[in-house]
């Protein structure tokens, strides 16, 4: 019963992550294409300088790319665990993928905050820059993911050792 509930929960979470990947990828890149022709652009971007706009567009592409990479890692992890595969190297790679993409997103967010300030750009929806709280929470998240990565690495090594005992 408990196992079935866990499997059901994992399936639901996996479906939510799948939906999120689709929304983020299609929404962001669709939004970027539609921006010049609709009001979406004005709601999102600060149009006062051409260079500033280029920086913002590059930011969106990079942030979305990193988010999709992180979500794909999460999806692979959920799928493997739902299939009963725990301490396998694919899971370790998936956690590693989540770790580096989140860390890069955190660094990018921090850099954005400085660059936007220097270029006097306004982050209209507050999605590309970070507040002090965002940075602290992000750092906490990266630390937890790093610990999970270390646990998986040890788990994979122990599993390989156990598999060599016949």
């Amino acid at each position: 019963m408990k196992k079935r509930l866990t499997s059901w929960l994992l399936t639901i979470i996996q479906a939510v992550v799948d939906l999120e990947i689709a929304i983020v990828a299609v929404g962001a890149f669709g939004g970027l294409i539609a921006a010049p022709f609709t009001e979406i652009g004005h709601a999102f971007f600060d149009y006062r300088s051409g260079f500033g706009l280029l920086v913002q567009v590059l930011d969106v592409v990079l942030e979305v790319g990193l988010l999709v990479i992180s979500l794909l890692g999460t999806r692979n992890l959920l799928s493997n665990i739902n299939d009963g595969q725990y301490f396998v190297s694919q899971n370790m790679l998936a956690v590693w993928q989540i770790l580096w993409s989140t860390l890069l997103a955190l660094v990018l967010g921090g850099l954005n905050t400085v660059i936007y300030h220097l270029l006097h750009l306004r982050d209209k929806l507050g999605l590309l820059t970070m507040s002090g709280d965002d940075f602290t929470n992000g750092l906490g998240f990266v630390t937890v993911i790093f610990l999970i990565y270390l646990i998986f690495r040890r788990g994979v090594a122990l599993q390989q050792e156990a598999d060599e005992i016949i």
Partner: protein
Amino acid sequence: MIRVNLDVVLSERKMTSKELAQRIGITPANLSILKTGKARGIRFETLDKICRALNCQPGDILEYQGG
């Protein structure tokens, strides 16, 4: 060093590796790893099944070689 004499016991019993693998429920590949001494260890459960299938003692299969 521990030497695995499984092939000797198998030939004495006139049993093939494949047959033994089937009887004790492990893959022929794993049995081959065990026979060639490449396994890191052997479970008591597996040893019990081998001894039962071959009607022998653990000492007939495993031998300590000094030096």
